[in-house]
């Protein structure tokens, strides 16, 4: 169930809020656990049972790791952690990567003339990458004695499956939120008033901007479109804006929803296209993923405490994992390694150490350009497609827009594209979400009212109009 859908906006969320306001505070986590499982069922009822099974395993593992008997047997404790992590990663590997792996085996066997091998095709449970990382965060935090194991299955389900973050993050590390799970005395009216503007900001970003520029990117990246240099740049820039407004919009909605139910979620974006280096970009883009990898992969690998070679190795491992986490395709791997390489170059040349206030304009421009090029890999359906688009971008060829693109480049979308581009140029410290959440100035208050009273209702109208289906042609 998408947040930007009628079933969520006018059925699920109002009913959940009414129940939350009607029930006593102590029932909050129970309510959230139940409605979150119902929310998940909309993505596939059978997956709910799979999710509950994985939750049960991790809940039991957490209790065992934190138990008195294990305290006296560190070897067994570590073995149980390894087994649980292996279980979680195994589930992720089977569901998300088995199809990709068997396809590679199939191709290699084909090249070697070894005959045909089967290719698995498994339906992917929604949000599996997110809840797997939540489970891993939990068992590792418990193992590290960072937090005690959760005794309440209700609170544990609320942590793992809480619907605001279940399908699109942000990734909430267990130690970040453990205290909040037990704290249920809330100002429900104040939380709604505080969370709603943030939700509205996200809805507007997703529906009005991301979805409006998406057709431009889709047309440019579609098969068979004759690309020239301006067209390729137009499409890649459209995608650059689409993915930011889409993903950060979802994060804003998640943060706002969590706030409506009395939770504070971590920030996930901080104007990434205003970064002055790729290193800086990764401190601003999908920050909750970046923090997760820092805590549970980069630092355990040794971080940058070891030799120079070990530091670069660790960096590449993190970005290899980052790429593959996003999807089982060589394009995601290429995107991850591209960013890893950029970070390595910045580290090797000392560019990462240049103070942030030096040469801001050219550095912002260069970093934005590097991010844009990276998105080609992320968006392309295959490495061949990525090569085709990159070639069009960097080997000059000119001409008009192909009809596939000019058809979708309406005045409205052109205007939205231009508005989206502004995000690159406004000052770096102007972070809208932070302003909406914490600001008390007249500007902040006006923006809260504007998003809630104008932008979100218009986005809701667009969502509602999206249910209109004039396309199935009956007259023929």
């Amino acid at each position, binding site marked *: 169930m998408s947040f930007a859908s009628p079933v969520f906006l006018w059925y699920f969320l109002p009913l959940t809020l009414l129940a939350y306001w009607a029930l006593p505070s102590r029932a909050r986590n129970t309510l959230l656990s139940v409605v979150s499982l119902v929310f998940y069922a909309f993505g596939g009822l059978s997956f709910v049972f799979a999710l509950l099974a994985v939750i049960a395993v991790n809940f039991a593992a957490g209790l065992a790791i934190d138990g008195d008997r294990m305290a006296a047997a560190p070897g067994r404790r570590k073995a149980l952690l390894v087994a649980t992590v292996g279980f979680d990663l195994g589930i992720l590997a089977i569901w998300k990567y088995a199809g990709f792996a068997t396809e590679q085996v199939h191709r290699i066997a084909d090249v070697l003339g070894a005959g045909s091998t089967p290719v698995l095709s498994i339906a992917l449970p929604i949000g599996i990458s997110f809840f797997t990382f939540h489970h891993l965060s939990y068992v590792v935090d418990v193992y590290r004695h960072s937090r005690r194991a959760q005794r309440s299955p209700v609170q544990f389900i609320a942590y793992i499956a809480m619907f605001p973050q279940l399908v699109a993050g942000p990734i909430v590390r267990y130690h*970040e939120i453990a205290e909040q799970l037990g704290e249920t005395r809330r100002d429900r*009216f104040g939380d709604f008033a505080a969370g709603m*503007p943030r939700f509205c900001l996200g809805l507007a970003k997703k529906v009005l901007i991301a979805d409006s520029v998406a057709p431009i990117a889709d047309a440019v990246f579609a098969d068979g479109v004759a690309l020239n240099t301006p067209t390729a740049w137009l499409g890649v820039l459209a995608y650059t804006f689409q993915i930011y407004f889409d993903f950060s919009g979802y994060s804003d909605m998640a943060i706002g929803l969590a706030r409506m139910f009395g939770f504070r979620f971590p920030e996930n974006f901080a104007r990434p296209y205003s970064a002055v280096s790729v290193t800086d970009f990764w401190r601003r883009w999908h920050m909750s993923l970046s923090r997760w990898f820092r805590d549970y992969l980069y630092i355990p690998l040794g971080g940058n405490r070891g030799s120079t070679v070990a530091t670069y190795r660790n960096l590449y491992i993190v970005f290899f994992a980052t790429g593959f986490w996003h999807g089982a395709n060589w394009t995601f791997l290429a995107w991850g390694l591209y960013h890893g390489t950029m970070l390595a170059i910045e580290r090797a040349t000392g560019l990462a*150490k240049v103070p942030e206030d030096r040469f801001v304009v050219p550095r912002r421009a260069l970093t934005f350009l590097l991010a844009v090029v990276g998105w080609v890999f992320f968006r392309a359906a295959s490495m061949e497609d990525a090569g085709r688009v990159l070639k069009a971008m960097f080997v000059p060829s000119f001409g008009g827009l192909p009809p596939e693109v000019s058809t979708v480049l309406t005045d*409205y979308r052109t205007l939205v594209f231009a508005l989206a581009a502004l995000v690159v140029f406004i000052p770096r410290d102007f972070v809208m979400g932070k302003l909406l959440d914490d600001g008390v100035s007249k500007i902040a208050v006006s923006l809260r009212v504007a998003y809630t009273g104008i932008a979100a209702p218009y986005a809701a109208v667009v969502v509602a109009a999206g249910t209109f289906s004039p396309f199935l042609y009956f007259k023929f």
Partner: protein
Amino acid sequence: MTETEPLATGPDVLAPPPPPREGKAVRLLVAALGAGLLFGPWAAAALGARSDAVPGENRALAERPDWHGFKTFEDITTYAADRFPLRDLAIRANKRFTTDVFGENPSYASDAGAAVGGVPSTKPQAEVAQVISGRDGWLYFFDDFRRACRPDVPLDTVLAGVRRMDALLAASGRRLVLTVPPDKSTVDPQFLPADYVDRACSVPAKAERWRALAGLDVPGYVDVRTPIEAQEKKTGVPAYLPLDTHWTQLSSTIFVQAVANRLDPALATGTSVVPLGTTKYGGDLSAIAGNPQTGTEQAFAIRRKGVTVAKTEEALNAGYVLTHVRSTASGGAAVFGPRTVLIGDSFTQRALDKFAPYFGDLVRVPELSKAILAGNLPQATDRMLEEIAGSKVVVVELVERTFAGAKDGSPFGAAFLDRLEASLARAPKR
């Protein structure tokens, strides 16, 4: 250099949200606006507002779902999307905003799910508009070009099917009359934009298609393109409607007369075309584009001296309706006596009143893609075969893009022709 230099940092513990710092009035205002967004439609429903049907919606809205296992959640989602209060108002508001402010048709590409793993949630496919906006407000159907460039069935296979049907009917003592109304873009391309998707491949494909039809060795083939184009040239009035896939009523009379003339040239006797003044039409292309509009056209009727028309309808189901015509002549004009089955698409449907005074015993059967949409293909196929077996003359009309480009429901496909062969073998020679 810190441990976490290349990656984001942040607090290790997120404290519960702090108490709000803004004034109560602001909180109240924001909460009221937010509540209006989420609960407003329900408040309106409580006050009696209902979501009416929206013009141009080409499907039935979802019915209240019953519990039937895993699929129930999908049904709830569909029902919720179709039935929430004020839906019609929102659709109209969106249309009005995009048409009035930007002069564009609204886009109905809707959200396709969550942004899993950061991959955008919007649909990855390229959006190709089904309607191409031409000059002077003219609209064109993208299928004209799509099916020319990427036909489901090669043209040679279709033409072989036509020859086979002709041979089967002739061998059984029956007669085939085939006519193919040209696509709007074939006769009136002058309003097309300078460039559009599939222009390069569709132009030669269409030319090849019409060359092949001109050389078709089937005696019952009726060329309607030539007289339609001649009429347009003579009057200077476009043969097709600006907002619709179909041609004008004047073109429709030319089409009907061409078919009647092929059946029996004597049918021209006592026939006149009568102008009826202007009438309104709802443009199907404007509806497909999501912006239903009405245009005006000149209405015409075909009058046949002394002929009385009797017409009845028979619904196989809600979406598939047969029409029976039994016109009688009392001096003056004659009617075509042999039992005739008229298989056709919307061009035939719209010309039915003009066909009716020509036939003493006609049954009009919608072409089978209509049956696919109506969900009764097997029943409709059986009935079509039955009607063919019971007729002396079979008239088939299919618009160019369907005739030469479509597979589903084509009467010239091997599956249908095999069944026709078996059916005719069982029927006595007439």
